């Protein structure tokens, strides 16, 4: 379980998270929506210990993420993360991209790492691209590679930061389909997204972020189709 408890986070004088609390249970899919600058991506970066927090607490399976004694590299193995920019490693083939971390981080044998990487690449529909260099692929394919690369570490949770925002519109569908598949398989996910249809159909719960706080959180269909908070109503009327 991921437990975010009253987290505050500032960049200089700018307070981005102003007391955020959120519990995400195993097997649950939570989508985070909200305007740009509302702090939703920052929350993911804090959960993954990429950004430090100012106060509050984040627990992942009861481990305090930001405690000094926590081995953050080890913790990140549990938390797969995919970003807006796919960040494929350009000097490696698709297969090498996905096999690298299992081999050097989990110290698997080369054969084992390749086997897992192959399996995850087939999982996201890239089974026929193993020896291709990622720069020769479309953004959608590279983003699916990023998902497979994270899955190859066998994470317990997936943090997805606007993974379709940088894609051409016609490529969004293939990436969302991959995420749908993961949700059906029971992967625990926190998705920061602008895809309201996806948030409504795939997630269990939706949280609406407004100026560094969660203004509304609830069952996905309810928040998207029948928001209670006027701020959520205003936001949704603008993005529709």
């Amino acid at each position, binding site marked *: 379980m991921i437990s975010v408890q009253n987290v505050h986070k500032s960049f200089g004088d700018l307070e981005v998270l102003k007391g955020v609390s959120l519990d995400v249970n195993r097997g649950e899919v939570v989508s985070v929506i909200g305007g740009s600058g509302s702090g939703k991506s920052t929350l993911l970066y804090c959960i993954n210990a*990429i950004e430090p927090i100012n106060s509050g607490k984040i627990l992942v399976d009861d481990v305090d993420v930001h405690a000094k004694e926590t081995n953050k590299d080890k913790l990140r193995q549990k938390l797969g993360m995919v970003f807006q920019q796919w960040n494929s490693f350009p*000097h490696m083939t698709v297969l090498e991209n996905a096999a690298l*971390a299992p081999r050097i981080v989990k110290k698997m044998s080369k054969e084992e790492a390749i086997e897992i990487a192959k399996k995850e690449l087939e999982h996201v529909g890239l089974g026929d691209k193993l020896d291709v260099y990622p720069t020769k692929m479309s953004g959608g394919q590279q983003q699916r590679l990023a998902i497979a690369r*994270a899955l190859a570490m066998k994470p317990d949770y997936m943090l997805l930061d606007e993974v379709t925002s940088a894609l051409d519109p016609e490529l969004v569908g293939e990436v969302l389909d991959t995420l749908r598949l993961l949700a059906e398989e029971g992967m625990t996910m926190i998705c920061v997204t602008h895809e309201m249809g996806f948030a409504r159909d795939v997630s269990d719960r939706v949280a609406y972020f407004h100026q560094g706080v969660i203004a509304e959180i609830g069952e996905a269909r309810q928040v998207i189709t029948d928001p209670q908070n006027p701020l959520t109503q205003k936001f949704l009327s603008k993005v529709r």
Partner: protein
Amino acid sequence: MNSLFTPLSWSDSGLILTGVWNTIIISVVAIVVGTVLGLIVGFLRAESNKAVNVLFGSVLDVLRSVPLIIQLILFSTFVGAMGNPLAPFVAGSIVLSLYTMAFMSEVFRSGFESVSPSMQIAARSLGMTKWQTIYHIRLPIGLRAVFPSWLGVSLSVIKDSALVSVIGYMELLRTSEQLISRTQQPLEILIGVGIFYFIISYPLSHYGRYVERKMAI
């Protein structure tokens, strides 16, 4: 009748080959040492804060801005005056290596900086440590990006090595100067020497283009 000058003959080829060999040796030393030191300094510069960079930068600026020929003369005279004159090869290697390092460090710094922070965060998010990220991601991507510049610096070092002749190192140019003063055939000899430099450099630049194509990303 004995002439003051003796024309160029086959017996001079040994001397010329020694010059060629010495040019190659000092160039290889300078490129290897300059590359290793340049990698370290370039990495430190890419990683460091502004204060450290200003300090590093000014030393490198001196090495880059003062003409190599002056650095060579100053260094070997200074060391000689201190009472421990160095062999021309040693003094030349030191100066040429540091001079190369100054250029290489800028090449590698831009290489390291060309790898975006988001790429590094992506690597870290997979559980890689800082050093794994440097070794598996930053270094290989950065080096590929700057390979053409590295090759350019290396080729100019080969040509710059001719300047080490001023402190008495018997490289290609100095051997040819000796031959010129004996034979009074400057045209033939300098054309020949030019061809030798071309023969040394051309395969390298050609091979470089091949490598560049092969690892294009």
